[in-house]
């Protein structure tokens, strides 16, 4: 199973092991970690939620897209759900390819696609509140159950 949703800490090496191949000269990994500061605001922890069966299907789709675009690529992705503390690993993407340029490009493609089509959401918890983060660019936020005046007039 190269594409997984995990409830516990992700073992990075085991994700890498899935893409090792004799004809690969390069493996890239992307490790998304929980950052303490976003625009000066201090995060205490995050909670990730997934629509799990669909999320796995969409991760598989991303893998298929990559194999079609980058010849000889192997891909494995594990995304964690539940409560994550600062520096915890939320997602690991491993891509192997014969040559290194492809490994970087295909890996970058994977994270961008995750942020577009994979049904996973994060809720940020700060000292003064919490919020479901609205989209992958972190520009749209949906305050939990408490619409702001501005939202009502949108």
């Amino acid at each position: 199973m190269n594409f997984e949703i995990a409830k516990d800490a992700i073992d990075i090496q085991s994700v890498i092991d899935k893409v090792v191949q004799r004809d690969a000269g390069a493996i890239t990994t992307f490790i998304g970690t929980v950052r303490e500061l976003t625009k000066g605001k201090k995060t205490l922890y995050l909670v990730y939620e997934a629509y799990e069966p669909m999320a796995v299907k969409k991760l598989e789709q991303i893998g298929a897209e990559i194999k079609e675009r980058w010849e000889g690529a192997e891909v494995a992705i594990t995304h964690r759900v539940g409560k994550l503390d600062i520096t915890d690993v939320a997602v690991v993407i491993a891509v192997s390819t014969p040559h290194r340029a492809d490994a970087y490009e295909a890996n970058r493609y994977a994270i961008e696609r995750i942020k577009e089509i994979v049904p996973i959401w994060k809720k940020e918890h700060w000292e003064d509140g919490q919020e479901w983060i609205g989209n992958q660019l972190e520009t749209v936020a949906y305050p939990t159950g408490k619409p702001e005046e501005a939202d009502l007039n949108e």
Partner: protein
Amino acid sequence: MNKILFFAHLRDEAGEESISLDAEGKTVEELKQMVAEQYQMKRLDSVMTAINEEFAPGDEVIKAGDVIAFIPPVSGG
């Protein structure tokens, strides 16, 4: 009957993880409007819809037994 799944802020607004209702013959758009009124949900416009775990356009007609999920803008990664 159809199962309707809510996630993220929609789950908080609905107060439910899922509901059951009969949406057979309705389009995705019609169902959205119905649910938005019933649960006083805002911003369903920016929410995508999945039928049986695959994204579906607003004019797709729902069949009996289809599982519908409302998918707010995602923020994984």
